[in-house]
């Protein structure tokens, strides 16, 4: 995306500030949403290339510092999770579990998407989702019942394996599976205390995996395209 001009950014900033002041004056709860949007607007605009106010060194410093902040946040969330779950012997706070798991999945998915082709990223996500949820299902004990309960995830693992040969077919099956879980297990509209783990850590990742396999490319395959030879 082309970076916006300074004039456009100033005008957008003035309009945004006016909206925030208006919301603050009316003491609307949406004021808090506006504050969150302020905090994340600039980094988000930089990530999509609309805001280009940092050179390569400052961008690198920003990325590295964000990475450290991520590690610290994950460490704190992990410690709370372990302490409440194992030391106190109770249920870890739902919000902590959600933050921990969603953030870790986003980290994994972003790594795959940035570092690999779409097809390989889709396959990696399918392996992760199928394997993790199968282990979760079998965590209740190994029996015919839990095996049947885990069968959809076994199907995902089989599709992940077959995607090496038939990526689009496997992608369609996986994507449809993701849609099916969304329809079967999620009540809309979503509310804060509903189970958000199913849509955000099952349905959406599986649909993402399927979509990536369907769209897939193999640009890092040396044999995909011949090397152009220029004769002098």
């Amino acid at each position, binding site marked *: 995306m082309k970076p916006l001009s300074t004039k456009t950014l100033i005008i957008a900033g003035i309009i945004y500030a006016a909206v925030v002041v208006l919301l603050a004056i009316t003491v609307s709860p949406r004021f808090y949403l506006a504050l969150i949007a302020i905090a994340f607007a600039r980094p988000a605009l930089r990530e999509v290339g609309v805001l280009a106010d940092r*050179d*390569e*060194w*400052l961008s*690198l410093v920003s990325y*590295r510092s964000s990475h450290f902040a991520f590690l610290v946040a994950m460490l704190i969330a992990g410690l709370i999770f372990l302490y409440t779950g194992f030391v106190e012997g109770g249920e870890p706070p739902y919000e902590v579990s959600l933050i921990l798991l969603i953030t870790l999945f986003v980290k994994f998915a972003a790594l795959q998407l940035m570092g690999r082709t779409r097809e390989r990223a889709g396959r990696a996500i399918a392996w992760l989702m199928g394997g993790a949820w199968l282990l979760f299902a079998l965590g209740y004990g190994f029996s015919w019942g839990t095996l049947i309960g885990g069968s959809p995830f076994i199907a995902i693992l089989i599709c992940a394996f077959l995607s090496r040969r038939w990526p689009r077919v496997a992608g369609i099956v996986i994507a449809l599976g993701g849609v099916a879980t969304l329809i079967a297990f999620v009540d809309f509209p979503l509310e804060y205390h509903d189970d958000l783990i199913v849509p955000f850590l099952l349905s959406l990742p599986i649909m993402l995996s399927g979509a990536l396999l369907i769209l897939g490319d193999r640009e890092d395959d040396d044999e995909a395209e011949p090397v152009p030879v220029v004769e002098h």
Partner: protein
Amino acid sequence: MREAVFVREKVGNRVRTLRFLREEMTQEELANKVGVARQTIIAIEKGKYNPSVALAIKIARVFGVSVEEVFTLAGDEAGS
């Protein structure tokens, strides 16, 4: 430890020397000419950061020399 965070391989440079040989060009002036912040030039001169290929070429062009005359791998001599 701080170097290890941003620099994977030791790259030497003569940016500071070449600046002074070019009518004592300041870090700010060089930064403006190549389109980066002054902190970036400072980080490069101190060896804390290896610039991208594009930035290295831009810096070399400002000084009117080849990239190898500005940047060298550890153990090599500049310009040789």
